[in-house]
């Protein structure tokens, strides 16, 4: 059953004549994690700022759990948890004091305020530093304070602007894990320019460039846009690659070869022509008929970074407003 918690239609925003966001529409259902991708300055943050009610859209509609943010801003804001870019917080406060402040504004009843704060501190691993001023904490902890603040009222809609930006790999992993845990009962929108994140946490992705949506679909669909989609990669002994290439060139389904010498082996990647889905079988058959030793053979899903680059390059921006 579909339960659309966030619905954005025809959203646009101009800053002094420059269109930072141009006619963006998106929906997020309960149980979904929508990844919002795009190069810096593409309009990701601006879109999020409009959804959360910080900026007023020039055009378009935003409906948060059925509440129009323009008509019922306070009601809509109550349903959202928001982590702004850079996780701003009051530096002189402690995480404990800060969360008490947020809990008060969010009107969490006194009877379970304390318990809820302790629970969140525990969940986000902040208990240790709960009584240190936020300005003295490391970047990872500061980010966690921002996340704690966003989920303190257990919102149905969670919007996070680059939640893992600037964190070390362990911290990134932890935060992604947390997002996945929460995903089942919430609608989550995260912006990122880290592609592995899309693969590991998102159920759907949207790419925007110059303020416009240029792709919308599942991470797998995104990967299939890659010229590496269904490409076959093999590892052969160095020195043999020329002979093998000559032999494989007989297969007409191969579009081109990519040969990368490595330490002891050479990696050969064969990209399929458009529409070819089973290159592996033809290559396997060909190789089986020869004596060459193949060390590895696998089919690629597609390379997200390549898709991202080719898609956004077409829309390459020149000095657009940084948002």
């Amino acid at each position, binding site marked *: 059953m579909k339960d659309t918690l966030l619905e954005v239609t025809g959203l646009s925003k101009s*800053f002094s004549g420059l269109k930072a966001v141009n006619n963006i529409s998106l929906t997020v259902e309960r149980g979904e994690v929508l990844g919002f991708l795009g190069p810096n300055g593409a309009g990701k943050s601006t879109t999020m700022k409009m959804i959360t009610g910080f900026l007023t859209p020039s055009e378009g509609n935003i409906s948060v759990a059925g509440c129009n943010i323009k008509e019922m801003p306070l009601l809509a804001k109550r349903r*959202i948890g*928001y982590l702004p870019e850079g996780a*701003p917080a*009051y530096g002189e406060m402690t995480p404990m004091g800060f969360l008490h402040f947020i809990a008060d*504004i969010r009107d969490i009843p006194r009877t379970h305020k304390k318990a809820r704060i302790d629970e969140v501190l525990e969940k986000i691993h902040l208990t240790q530093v709960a009584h240190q001023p936020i300005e003295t904490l490391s970047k990872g902890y500061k980010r966690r304070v921002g996340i704690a603040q966003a989920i303190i009222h257990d919102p149905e809609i969670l919007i996070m602007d680059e939640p893992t930006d600037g964190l070390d790999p362990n911290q990134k992993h932890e935060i992604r894990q947390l997002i996945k845990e929460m995903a089942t009962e919430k609608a989550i929108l995260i912006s990122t320019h880290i592609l592995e994140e899309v693969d590991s946490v998102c159920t759907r992705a949207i790419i925007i460039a110059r303020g416009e949506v240029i792709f919308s679909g599942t991470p797998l669909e995104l990967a299939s846009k890659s010229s590496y989609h269904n490409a076959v990669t093999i590892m052969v002994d160095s020195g043999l690659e020329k002979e093998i290439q000559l032999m494989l060139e007989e297969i007409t389904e191969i579009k081109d070869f990519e040969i990368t010498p490595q330490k002891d082996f050479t990696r050969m990647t064969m990209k399929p022509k458009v529409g070819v889905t089973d290159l592996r079988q033809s290559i396997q058959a060909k190789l089986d008929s020869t004596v060459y030793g193949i060390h590895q053979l696998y089919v690629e899903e597609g390379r997200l970074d390549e898709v991202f680059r080719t898609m956004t390059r077409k829309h390459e921006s020149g000095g657009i407003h940084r948002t």
Partner: protein
Amino acid sequence: MKGLKAIFKRELGSYFDTPVAYVFIVIFLVLNGIFTFYVGGFFERGQADLAPFFEFHPWLYMFLIPAVSMRLWSEERKSGTLELILTLPVSLTASVVGKFLAAWVFTALALLGTIPIWVTVNYLGDPDNTVIAISYIGSLLMAGGFLSIGSCVSALTKNQVIAFVVSFIICLAFNLSGFPMVLDVFNAWAPQFVVEVIGSFSFLTHFDSIQKGVIDIRDLIFFASLIGFWLFANVLAIEFNKGD
């Protein structure tokens, strides 16, 4: 209302989280002492009243209040917490009023620190305590006026120093506008009503009568509407500049 209360509580607490509060209170009290006893000649006058104490308040507030108000909104802008506060379920007006009230209560606490002077004058003589009580209220009202100016100005910039300097200049203008020196400049060429309007904006004139123990409803309305006006401008300043 809940939101306003939470904003107020946090803001008031933040004064005491940093050394600002203590530095301010100490400077306020020391300067008050110097002005009252040395410049104002509290003892030499031989009168049991607090006129030399209150007389200097407009001048003291002129540069001390901008120091209290300069961080109210500029700090939010600088640290990015403006985005946080504006995406929480609390209206902008409630935030503006909550922060203003916190700064006002803080100033009131500093003013409470001068109670020993009141006690002293009672010990030394037999002052008219009603006049003194009214003067305290007047002084607090005037502080509110200065604070609303400072709060609005701090909403326009990320830079606390700029907020301080600009608020100081505006406060100075509000003080001086009743000064004969300034009014004479306008007297030479401007029609009489313009001079009167300029003069009527002076904090000095309005505070002067209160300080003599006279509660004129017009003075109260002046300060109340002044605060209302600047806080309204404060809301607009944020509403139209939040994107930067």
